């Protein structure tokens, strides 16, 4: 039955696109309504609860004292994980992270890491001790495009983050925390290709109908990450269009940080 519904929805989505329309009346390069609530989780060192349409994601940033990697003994450690909570969709199941959850965590992590916006050397405490930054992404409600919602939430949570001071072997959260210094903002923009049409911010039905998906990370005027998924192919001019739209949308998206 699910398969039948999917096929009906797919043909409906395609029919609309051929008439230049989307089911929710958006333009092809329009986002749904975006809301961002920074500091939503008080037990974190930084957090944000982001909604893009009916998709909702919480990002939390927490600091810890950890042992550095042996090949980078003077650098902090960034660790990103994602949970596709079973409450977010009837298709998400409890258990260890799925391929999709791991991809989500890695793609969000990659944009932040490659943009080099966090001064990892600044996270050094003393030999064998550095700050660890844990970013947790919680997908609460899934109506397509958790990627951009998670990326925006992660960046907003980093902007919201306060670094606790290291005193006598532990982190102290007593009001002396300092804002995390960031050299820029890395944000991601996700497109799908459906029968030759390119759409920004796919809804769930559009995601199901997609031949291919491309997520582009932007930091300032540079590209900081890319991830293609789906079996469909992309043409060079399509990628160029998607990069152009991402660069244009960047400042608009930054307003939600």
């Amino acid at each position: 039955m699910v398969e039948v519904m999917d096929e009906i929805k797919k043909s409906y989505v395609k029919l609309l696109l051929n008439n230049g329309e989307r089911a929710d009346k958006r333009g092809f390069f329009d986002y749904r309504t975006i809301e961002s609530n920074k500091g939503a989780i008080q037990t974190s060192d930084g957090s944000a609860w982001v909604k893009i349409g009916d998709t909702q994601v919480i990002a939390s940033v927490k600091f810890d004292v950890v042992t550095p990697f042996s090949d980078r003994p003077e650098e902090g450690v960034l660790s990103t994980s994602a949970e596709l909570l079973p409450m977010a969709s009837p298709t998400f199941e409890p258990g260890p992270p799925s391929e999709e959850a791991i991809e989500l965590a890695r793609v969000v992590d990659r944009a932040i890491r490659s943009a080099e916006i966090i001064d990892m050397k600044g996270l050094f405490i003393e030999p064998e001790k550095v700050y660890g930054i844990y970013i947790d992404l919680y997908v609460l409600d899934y109506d397509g495009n958790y990627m951009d919602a998670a990326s925006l939430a992660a960046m907003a949570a980093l902007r919201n983050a306060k670094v606790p001071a290291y005193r006598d072997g532990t982190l102290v959260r007593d009001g002396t925390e300092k804002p995390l210094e960031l050299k820029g903002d890395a944000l991601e923009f996700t497109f799908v290709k459906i029968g030759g049409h390119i759409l920004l911010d796919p809804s769930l039905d559009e995601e199901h109908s997609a031949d291919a998906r491309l997520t582009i990370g932007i930091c300032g005027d540079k590209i900081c990450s890319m991830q293609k998924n789906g079996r469909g192919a992309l043409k060079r001019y399509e990628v160029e269009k998607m990069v152009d739209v991402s660069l244009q949308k960047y400042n608009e998206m930054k307003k939600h940080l």
Partner: protein
Amino acid sequence: MSGNENIKLIVDGKRLDGRELDEMRPLKITAGLLNKADGSALVEWGGNKILAAVYGPVECFPRHESNPYKAKLSCRYLMSPFASKDEHGRAGPNRRSIELSMVLGKALENVVMLEKYPRAMIEVFIEVLQASGGTRCASLVAASVALANAGIPMKDLPVAVAAGKIDGKVCLDCSKDEDNFGQADVPIALAPRNNDILLLQMDGLMTKDEFFKALDYIEKSAPEIHRLEVEALRKAYEETDAQ
């Protein structure tokens, strides 16, 4: 329950957060805030933030657990790695969360009319986003509202709150510090229509009189929690109607 003698939890007859002994922390319930789930609720209670969502009735999984006489109720309580002020926790279930999932599920089974849905399954997912003492009671309140929000028939809308003992005195709805440094903790869930006890746990040391005083406090606060649950549901349906 370390019973640390050095920490005073009652000063000049008031608790550290200024509450009376029989006073609850402020409780806010929002119903229906998730779109994909059949029902949902966010409970903000003191420093707790707990999200519950319900799917169902759905096909039973695993298949061999399906019952020809009634639905299976599956309840999953999980604490997020960022729920506490302390260090980053581990994701996924642990011994504590598995036990809590079970006792919460059993409490809910009492009121959910499972016999209406033979062979099916009703799933309750509870995520503790922020924890500050009393998460199991707050979780039960969230689950109860989420089940009603999903339109699952129930005999009653259960309520829950914990009582405890701090500085030798019985008190209602322990905060995190009171829980950590107090002498006892008694989380109880009730069916407000007849005060049936649906969930009961206790750890620490109490006399018989103290225990029943704790139950008195809980029974007295039940109608107020129930009123807030009903109000949250009414608000969710009024908003749906307005659309």
